[in-house]
């Protein structure tokens, strides 16, 4: 087991190496540079040249890449060109917001999608089933930013039921421990903050959950339909077991296997979707920072953030794969 985890983590190294090459050279192909975005429009050509020189951008690109790799070996992604603070620090202050949002979206998707898919399969051809199928198609088709904007207009601005932006209400006082507002406020007992933080998560969480919700609903439905026709379900029924036992132990346990894999893969799309959702709701996570960095040609920030996201993505998938072995003894690692 330990060797398996180690092997998976070691596989990360070549993947990250490849990613760094791709990103590093790709970014430099973008027109413009930080000298155009960081300096005022009326800056002289000498000033621009001086900035490029001081940032080391005039070295041969291969040398720049070598320097980047050397610093990476010390787990240093350099400083952000926009803020001047270390990229790592920028990341750790922003990541909890994105993680909180992604977790909220995934919880919504799992808690709604699995029961919905299950009952759609059980009541195949019913109104519930056709609505679930149609709804999930819609969920996949609607662009996340459009859904986010619509939710914001309807439920925040027109109806005023839920807050339209930020992670907490104005003037809220809170104690920061981990950066996860819901968790922190529960730990410190500031339950008014918990309620406010949860309220601020609902709309962006819903918007971000649309794709995973749709995928999980459909996968659960298809998987349950397949399992219902399996011989072992008939065997379970031939033993006279109670319907609840047949449904949970024999149907759901088997039907969940492909869904678990899907959940792992969906975490990637959640991180991507978070960029758009965060900007609509001014959520202040990594998404809006990456967007800004791209606009500003903040090379170290973009590189650092994307590589850290890649690491997190791989670790999340590893955790999902490990949890998979709990559910399916056939792939259990010896």
């Amino acid at each position: 087991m330990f060797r398996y985890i180690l092997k998976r983590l070691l596989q990360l190294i070549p993947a990250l190496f490849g990613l760094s090459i791709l990103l590093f050279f790709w970014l430099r192909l973008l027109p413009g540079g930080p000298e155009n975005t960081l300096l005022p429009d009326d800056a002289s050509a000498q000033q621009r040249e001086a900035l490029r020189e001081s940032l080391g951008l005039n070295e041969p690109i291969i040398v720049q890449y070598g320097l980047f790799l050397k610093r990476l070996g010390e787990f240093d992604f350099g400083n952000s060109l926009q803020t001047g603070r270390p990229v790592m620090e920028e990341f750790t202050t922003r990541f909890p917001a994105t993680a909180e949002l992604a977790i909220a979206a995934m919880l919504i998707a799992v808690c709604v999608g699995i029961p919905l898919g299950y009952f759609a399969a059980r009541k195949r051809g019913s109104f519930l089933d056709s609505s679930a199928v149609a709804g999930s198609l819609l969920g996949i088709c609607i662009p996340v930013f459009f859904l986010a904007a619509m939710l914001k207009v309807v439920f925040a601005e027109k109806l005023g039921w839920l807050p339209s932006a930020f992670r907490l209400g104005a003037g809220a006082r809170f104690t920061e421990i981990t950066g996860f507002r819901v968790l922190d406020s529960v730990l410190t007992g500031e339950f008014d903050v918990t309620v406010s933080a949860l309220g601020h998560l609902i709309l962006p969480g819903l918007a971000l959950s649309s794709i995973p919700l749709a995928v999980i609903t459909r996968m659960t439905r298809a998987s349950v339909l397949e399992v219902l026709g399996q011989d072992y379900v008939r065997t379970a029924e031939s033993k006279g077991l109670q319907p609840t036992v047949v449904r949970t132990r024999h149907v759901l346990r088997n039907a969940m296997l492909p869904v678990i894999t899907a959940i792992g893969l969906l975490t990637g799309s959640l991180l991507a979707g978070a960029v758009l959702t965060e900007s609509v709701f001014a959520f202040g996570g990594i998404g809006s920072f990456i967007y800004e960095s791209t606009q500003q040609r903040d090379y170290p920030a973009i590189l650092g953030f994307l590589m850290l996201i890649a690491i997190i993505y791989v670790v999340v998938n590893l955790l999902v794969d490990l949890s998979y072995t709990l559910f399916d003894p056939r792939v259990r690692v010896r």
Partner: protein
Amino acid sequence: MPLLTVDNLSVTFTGDDKRPVRAVDGVSFGMDEGEVLGLVGESGCGKSVTSLALMGLLPSRGVEVGGRVHFDGIDVRSLPARRLRDMRGSQLAMIFQDPLSSLNPVVPIGRQVTETLRRHKGMRGKAARERAAELLDRVGIPDPARRLTEYPHQLSGGMRQRALIAMAVACAPRLLIADEPTTALDVTIQAQILDLLGELVRSEGTSLLMITHDLGVVAGLCDNINVLYAGRVIEASSRQQLFANPHHPYTAGLLGSVPRLDAPRGEALTPIRGSINDTIDWNDGCAFAPRCDHYTMECLTGTPELVPAGEGHQHRCVNPVNLDPGPADADRHGHVAEGDNVR
């Protein structure tokens, strides 16, 4: 009173836009306590569907079931689902064809045995585990305590079928239905499983309904045999009678097509020509007529009835063969009568 009475059982599959298919077409038979009855026929003759109908395991959608099934005097088909569930696994149990796909791949063997004990006997915890180990031991699985914690994919094919048998006999059912229990196994394991089944039913006094396409299987095990063709019983008799003196040309054809060790080298097998697809509707005459070597015009008018011919022997044929067995016929089929494996 017989333990099981099946009266005019019919099963029709009605697809949404397809022509209804009648898989079982008026099957009737009875079984006494402790009797071993073979239900024999080729693929598609309705034998598995019959067994699922007896257990109430056919899907409710797209299936129409007719006729009556009485088990121990109880009309099984009119029982509420809850009562039927109480009977399944405790009084009526079933063993399926493919032991790998019939076992839940993600639940340990032990759990799959104890869940039956828990459901019907209220046994839980250590008591249930000990009983499950006894059952695995009873069906010949070595090191049962360890096997309880293992998963189906860790067992061999024969072991899996033994485990399924252990689950089926866990609550000492009065009727055991075995649907092609040896088809997915290799020949040496087949013989072991058949021996085990025979020994279990004899020692417990369980009735066994053995469903198979393999005459070799019924030859060694069954007291009585019903031969099915196109959803109907076409011949019913004791094992000895059937092997020595088959009346229906189809039964005779089945026996004639079995390979024999004492046949001269290079002699071709004698197949029944055509396939079960060449069946006509029973309403238009005998469904076997298109494949029969003995058919006359009489065979194509009206459904032939199941008629008695000799002691405990019935056939559904207007031109039966071997009614007056000559010495040649007796010699031809006689040797398999006493439980030899016909293979």
